């Protein structure tokens, strides 16, 4: 039991970070970023290259993952999404653009890194063993770093000036503009921040599960699951959705093992029932 909860918390912290980035981009720009999983994978490959290949410290690799993805996110916003939003009044346009970006990133990564599963040396070895819980130290470290990052993100959004501006922008674009918020600048900052979060989680997890160029799509789907559970565009919803999915996965893996690999089948079925009762998720607002 304790083991299942520990696994769920560890997974949930990673998931929550991924969902936070996705929901931030959605709340600010009304863009469903289908390429979020690919950004995560790219972050993983950056850490793989710098820590695994170039043998530089893990922290350096992690920072590089974050910075690289922040730059890519900012560029994507400035040159792709901003222009499409300006020219097209239809929301499908940005969805198609996001999907195309996902395929493009998939192809680029396949070209650069191949299709092999890539792993890196353990960041710390050893296993924490108590009567009821067994957890490798590196998982504990990665979980703690993820939780610290969630806390830092929330403090930033809640108390900093740019955080406040982004919340204002998400709640009422026109009113935010009337307060002097430069919409384009803060959309770019938000997109960069969301992409950065995805990249950092990718970098964190490469040290445990490794990375390969094909997992971007599945990660995106998981991220959308979490956001749907918690409610789109809400910070608390993304965090709740992340931990709920992590916990469900952990419980599913522990209890449904003898029936084969049906955990996600069960999760999808549950989610369909849940969404038919609460289409806006746990904390979602009717207006999205």
């Amino acid at each position, binding site marked *: 039991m304790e083991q299942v909860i520990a696994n769920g918390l560890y997974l949930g912290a990673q998931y929550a970070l991924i969902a936070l980035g996705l929901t931030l981009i959605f709340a600010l720009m009304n863009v469903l970023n289908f390429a979020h999983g690919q950004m995560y994978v790219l972050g993983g490959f950056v850490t793989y290259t710098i820590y695994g290949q170039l043998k530089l410290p893990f922290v350096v690799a992690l920072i590089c993952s974050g910075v690289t993805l922040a730059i890519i996110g900012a560029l994507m916003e400035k040159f792709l999404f901003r222009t499409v939003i300006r020219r097209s009044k239809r929301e499908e346009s940005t969805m198609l653009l996001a999907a195309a970006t996902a395929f493009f990133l998939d192809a680029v990564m396949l070209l650069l890194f191949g299709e092999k599963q890539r792993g890196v040396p353990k960041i710390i070895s050893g296993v924490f063993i108590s009567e009821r819980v067994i957890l490798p130290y590196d998982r504990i470290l990665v979980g703690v770093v993820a939780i610290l990052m969630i806390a830092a993100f929330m403090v930033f959004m809640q108390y900093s000036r740019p955080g406040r501006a982004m*919340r*204002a922008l998400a709640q*009422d674009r026109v009113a935010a503009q*009337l*307060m002097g918020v430069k919409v384009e600048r803060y959309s770019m900052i938000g997109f960069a921040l969301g992409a950065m979060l995805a990249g950092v989680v990718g970098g964190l997890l490469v040290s445990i599960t490794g990375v390969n160029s094909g997992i971007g799509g599945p990660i995106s789907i998981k991220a959308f699951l979490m956001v749907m559970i918690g409610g789109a565009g809400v910070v608390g919803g993304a965090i709740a959705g992340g931990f709920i999915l992590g916990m469900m996965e952990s419980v599913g893996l522990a209890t449904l093992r003898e029936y084969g690999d049906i955990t996600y089948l069960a999760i999808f079925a549950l989610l369909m029932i849940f969404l038919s009762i609460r289409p806006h998720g746990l904390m979602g607002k009717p207006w999205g």
Partner: protein
Amino acid sequence: MDALLKFEDVELYYDHVYALKGVSVEVHEGETVALIGANGAGKSSILRAITGLRRIRSGQIQYQGKRIDGIAPDEIVRMGISMVPEARRVFPYMSVRDNLLMGAFTRSDKAGIQQSMEMVLARFPRLKERYSQQAGTMSGGEQQMLVIGRALMARPRLLLLDEPSLGVAPKLVQDIARSIVAINRDEKVSVLLVEQNSRMALRISNRAYALTTGKVALSGTSSELLTDERVRHLYLGGEF
């Protein structure tokens, strides 16, 4: 004396439908000027043109002697023009405090912002009571006080108010009218007020313009307009 704001022969269209057809309006330093008229007469379009939310087709807008038409909304605030938008538009999931801080977004003088915060809270004690409450959960009147306070946090020289009495309980309309007068007097802010409640608007303003279908039909001092037969007939009949 030169006008603080000069709105000269402005035409404004929404797609192919005109909203303003050659409108000229002036606001002088220290004045409260009212724009009255029926729904769709173009009152709010004037405010949207000043704040840069809408582009004008022809004519020009001058503020402190400089042309400001074509400038983006976030720059207009920095020049000292604050807008209280129609239907209030608080940031619903932010606290009263954060809403007010957003009003001071363009400023970086911490001590000054603190001073403005105290001034606003003293002027609207209700906001002090609700300081940490989510703005979206407050009553219409309280939200109206909040958006006026939020606009003042930018320390404007010109305050634009779009229908501040709309959706506010009749009892509170008096309070809001009184605070507009007090703000104009104490904070040395000139006010351009758009109102459908013409009687209230004419009582608290120095001068007024009456608009019909995108044109200024009448203008003059507010006390003149209050007793003008045509105004009585067109705008004041039936109210109260």
